[in-house]
């Protein structure tokens, strides 16, 4: 992220106060991060425990000591299956929450979405352990549907972030975007001496000038590519402006946050048509895979129960 040299002027600072929502979101994000870390480490531990078994070929697994426990119908394999199934069933509550007005009083939709996403990741992770990293036959359709649902979930979440967290692009969203951008422009200009050309440069970098001409998928790839570059820069792989060295640490962080936010808003505003359309189409992918997933899961569980594999077998 480059910063104009004028930002180094000793003009008295006027820091824009953070919103209350932003202040309360940070601890929650940390908690969410912590939950994800703990869950991932737990899963990694289970994977490490079973790795000597998972790495074996199909024929060799039969004679491995851990086969009795880690095979899908084994004690641990079934436990993984039950837990994974529970996660997959829990994530459906998000759809229920969206559709049943009565449940609107039970937490914000954002929290339900977070839980939905967590279940959508943890469920497949546990089901993968249940499968022993090996799926064949008709259940493979269900398994890969589940993976598609999870993958499309990531895309959907990304698109949701692009459209600003709203579940549909509306005029109100557009207006709110414009207002926030004006506020950011004002702070960058008055506080850090950004000129119109600097702001124009930000809009150019956001791809605002070419957004109109881009189709849906190119837009998606473009946005993702841009985010990857931005992530690389944030990790130190980019070439930050030399002028940033003359700012204090807190001020430099603030300038980066303002410009990043400004860039994202500009980009969101510029690609709002495409991201809104893609988010609409995304449902057409996410839902059918979900239906196939649960259909196959039902068949699988039904056959397993019918054949007597609901409990660990000797």
């Amino acid at each position, binding site marked *: 992220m480059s910063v104009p040299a004028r930002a180094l002027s000793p003009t008295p600072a006027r820091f824009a106060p953070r919103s209350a929502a932003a202040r309360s979101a940070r601890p929650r994000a940390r908690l969410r991060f912590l939950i994800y870390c703990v869950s991932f480490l737990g899963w990694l531990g289970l994977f490490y425990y079973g790795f000597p078994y998972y790495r074996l070929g*199909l024929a060799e697994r039969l004679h491995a000591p851990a086969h009795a426990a880690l095979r899908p119908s084994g004690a641990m394999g079934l436990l993984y299956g039950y837990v994974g199934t529970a996660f997959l069933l829990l994530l459906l509550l998000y759809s229920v929450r969206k559709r049943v007005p009565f449940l609107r009083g039970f937490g914000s939709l954002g929290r339900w979405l977070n839980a939905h996403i967590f279940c959508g990741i943890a469920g497949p992770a546990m089901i993968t352990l249940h499968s022993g990293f090996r*799926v064949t036959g008709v259940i493979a359709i269900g398994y890969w549907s589940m993976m598609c649902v999870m993958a499309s979930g990531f895309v959907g979440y990304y698109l949701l972030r692009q459209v600003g967290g709203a579940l549909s692009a509306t005029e109100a969203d557009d207006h709110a975007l414009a207002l926030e951008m004006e506020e950011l422009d004002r702070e960058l200009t008055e506080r850090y001496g950004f000129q119109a050309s600097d702001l124009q440069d930000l809009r150019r970098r956001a791809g605002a000038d070419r957004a109109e001409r881009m189709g849906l998928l190119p837009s998606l790839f473009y946005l993702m590519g841009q985010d990857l570059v931005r992530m690389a820069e944030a990790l130190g792989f980019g070439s930050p402006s030399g002028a940033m060295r003359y700012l204090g640490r807190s001020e430099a962080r603030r300038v980066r946050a303002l410009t990043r936010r400004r860039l994202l808003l500009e980009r969101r505003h510029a690609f709002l048509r495409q991201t809104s359309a893609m988010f609409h189409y995304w449902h057409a992918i996410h839902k059918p895979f979900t239906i196939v997933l649960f259909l196959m899961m039902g068949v699988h569980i039904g056959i397993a129960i019918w054949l007597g594999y609901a409990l660990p*077998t000797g």
Partner: protein
Amino acid sequence: MLLAGVALMTAPRTAGAQFSPGPLSRPHAAIDKATACMECHEPKRATTALRCLACHKELAARVRAGRGYHGRDKARSTQCATCHAEHGGRDAALVSWPGGRDSFDHALTGYPLEGKHAALGCRTCHLPALVRATDVRAPTSLRLDSTYLGLSVRCAECHVDVHRGQFADRIAQADCAACHNSLAWKPVSVDHDRAGFPLTGRHAQVRCEGCHRSMMADGSVAPAGTPNAFVQYRPVPHEACADCHTDPHRNKYGSDCTRCHSTAGWSEIATGAFDHDRTRYPLRGLHRTVACAGCHAGGAFQKPLAFAACADCHGDRHGGQLAKSASGGACEACHSVDGFAPARYGIEDHKRTRFELRGAHLAVACISCHKPTSKSAPRGSVQFALKAAACADCHADEHAGQFTAAAGGAACSRCHGERAWREISFDHRKSRFPLDGAHARAACKACHRVETIGGRRVVRYRPLDTACRSCHATRPAGDPRSS
């Protein structure tokens, strides 16, 4: 990246068997189809032994009979999938060995591997060619090169019969262990009694090869160790001793050696066993009880023995006293083979001597007169030749020499006879004092009183005073008889 990894690891391998968790092994390939799940699975009961045993009839029979590894444990016979997991692909081995195949406890099959057997690999014995059970060998049954069923516990089913059928009856009874064990082929522990020929005495010390020779298939005898040779254990002629032993008597005494000999040793001839009548000297009387070695010193039966006279074997206990007798000292004149005593020498024989036995002498035991020559002399060593000219040669003088002056020195016979000591034939009328009147009625001891003569208390017969006053005292004054 995580997704890519998961995708790579979990890529479906087959498009078929949509409802199967994996292809079945090759032996079960025929039922590896979507419509055949129930061949092995049972609703609500997963896989059951019932389904498995419905096809594996050879195993079902063993489970029912409680035989073998599966039949000996209920868990093993009801939870097939524990060891025989399926859906592992065509090339998957169908047997899981808890702890590894090499550490399998074979005792669980009912046939513990001991000795040399314990060191053998599974497929040393579990070979298709050694599968004997007909139900396992059936064409529709198991693969012989992979099954562990169907072997027999009989030794001969695995081991070559090096005895070339000699013990076919024992082998039929799986009785190899009567001689052999699983530790080693040799040494054997043979109960030779079962062979109908108990090894006793010296036979027990003879090495097997001494009787059981190494033979070739054509019946010829081969040196031990000759390739393709085998030891002939049966039949080995053993009815007669001569089947193995040469007859040093050249059939002189017949073929039944056991009449004289035993397995205790060639020289150990059983007393009384030999029919000595076949010799020139039949044993009679006490000779029958004499041990062979008593005559045949050192068991040298072939050594000639003189037997014409008793003295050829027996010593003369009489010390040659009888050499000048009428018989010339021939033992048989008095003795027989029935014993040294009693001798046949009797009263009639004594008549022919200088001292015919009469009266009480007839009742006197020989030894009373014929005393042992010495205190340590053996039985029979007595003094035969006696002086016997006068009674006093044998009898003591009970009269303490009162009659030694009698004429001819044969004073004894003047009063005594040979019938009894107390038969006195003394005639007092011929004495110096004939008894008359009241003297004839007087008791002998009234006159012949006991006195001490020569230190002995004897009856005084002579000399006695014949004067009246020597016996009758003078009657005192006043005695009425004197008036």
